[in-house]
């Protein structure tokens, strides 16, 4: 099929556009969390570091908790915000 024949008002595209924006939102949250804890807590001299489970606090919150947070957010998004659509092509009568 040619690109110009694709119906841009296909309701599935509205869903797809919304889900792409969710992807952008997730990556922004991920980045802010990662950056904030790493450089917020990690920029003091190493002698002043506190440790959580043996790891420096900046690393623990930024990388360990940050990864867990993203896993939880992705699960929430998949369960609550994504819509199932069919990829089967119905015969179009043009």
């Amino acid at each position, binding site marked *: 099929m040619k690109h110009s024949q694709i119906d841009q008002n296909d309701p599935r595209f509205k869903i797809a556009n919304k889900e792409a924006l969710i992807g952008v939102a997730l990556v922004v949250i991920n980045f802010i969390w990662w950056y904030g804890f790493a450089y917020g807590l990690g920029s003091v001299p190493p002698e002043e570091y506190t440790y959580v489970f043996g790891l420096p606090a900046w690393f623990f919150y*930024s990388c360990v908790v940050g990864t867990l947070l993203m896993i939880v957010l992705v699960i929430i998004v998949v369960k609550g915000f994504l819509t199932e659509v069919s990829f089967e092509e119905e015969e179009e009568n043009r």
Partner: protein
Amino acid sequence: MNWQVMFPLVIFVISIFVVGFWSSRYLKNSTNFLQEYFLGSRELGGFILAMTMVATYGSASSFIGGPGTAYTQGLGWVLLAMAQVATGYFTLLILGKKFAIYARKYKAITLIDFLRSRYNNNKSVSILAAFSIIIFIFSAMAAQWVGGARLIESITGLSYTSALFIFAICVIIYVIIGGFRAVAVTDTIQGIVMLVGTFIILIGTIIAGGGISNIMAELVSENPNLVTPFGHDGGLTPAYVSSFWILVGVGVVALPQVTVRAMSYKSSKAMHRALVTGTIVVGFIMLGMHLIGVFARPILPGIEVGDTVMPMITMEVLPPWLAGVVLAAPLAAIMSTVDSLLLLVSSAVVKDVYLNFIKPEATNKQIKQVSFSVTTVLGILVFAIALSPPDLLIWLNLFAFGGLQSAFIWPVIMGLYWQRGNEHGALASMIVGASSYIIIHNFAPNMMGVHSVVFPILFSLIAFVLVSFLTKNSSFSSTNKLHA
């Protein structure tokens, strides 16, 4: 030769062959050879999709090079590596359903098919795209073969040439007999091996180091910078580390070996499941593998060659039979990357060059023969080059991924989400992106403290938007307006 280490490795290789033969049954029964061989008939389920994405992307760099650099740089490099968690969800959400639907409507089998259909069958777009994929992916693949052979060499004690020979035979045979389906299924086995391997080595390393607190204390007493986000000499600036979010995070969306997977899944349910699985797997593997590199430092001080950290720490902390099992992990990572790349280059040659320009009316049987011979010839060619890799190869491989991202990111993303974008914009974006990347990479690397990939991606966006506005809009036709 250490047979206790070798035995699990041999079992691993045999199981991969079994998968190849099993998948070849699908090829025989398939009515659409091209779609089955290069895309597994768009039947991937969620788990396999997630694993093949992670395994393809998590290449030698994350298993050998990454932990080696973390060994030198400390926790700052683990921080940098964690930008890759984004690939677990971002790629599938951005390309997402729209890419899957478009690909089905266009009947696209490769990224180039997608670009060609989206951009008005423009010949220059497809030639340029095919050319960059063949050159860049081919070099990236050859470099990975060198890595694979070196790994086999270091584990088994065979000579480099025999190691390379074994590696080449394994990869070529199962790619040829099984196609995309075999690659995806073996990726899944390899992904599981990587996951379990990471877990076991991490635990072993922590125990050998006397606990995390003890390891951290020893790192601080050696060099306090090792536990900061700034690298062993304070050289990792926040801007530089953050810019890796583009190279190894969001930019991955434009890599052809990733996009092809985004058109191969069965249903939206598979995609949803892959989002969760992919994020968990990539998060755990990246965190674990790079931490192992850092933790290995007090246990095995003074390793000169970073690439040997991973095999050495494994042999050090685990009993030999278990070391054999988990050393299959980095081998798995390399194999699962090269098999995808081999198939991708082969698809570019068969589908985008042979079928488009040489023989459009080829029969199913001819396509089959050509696909098998192209894959074989490419495999032998890579083998020959990897025997004594030329400098040009190293040079090309260094910027393969950045170059592909600069060239493809906007034609793909804007192609999906901006209807006004047209073939002239896409062409301008590819040329500006790739050439500015080559220039910056060679003459002003890491300009303004960020990775060389950042500015070319910005320039190619500007080129895409400007040129699309300045030229006639041919892709948005009146038929669409009528349907509105």
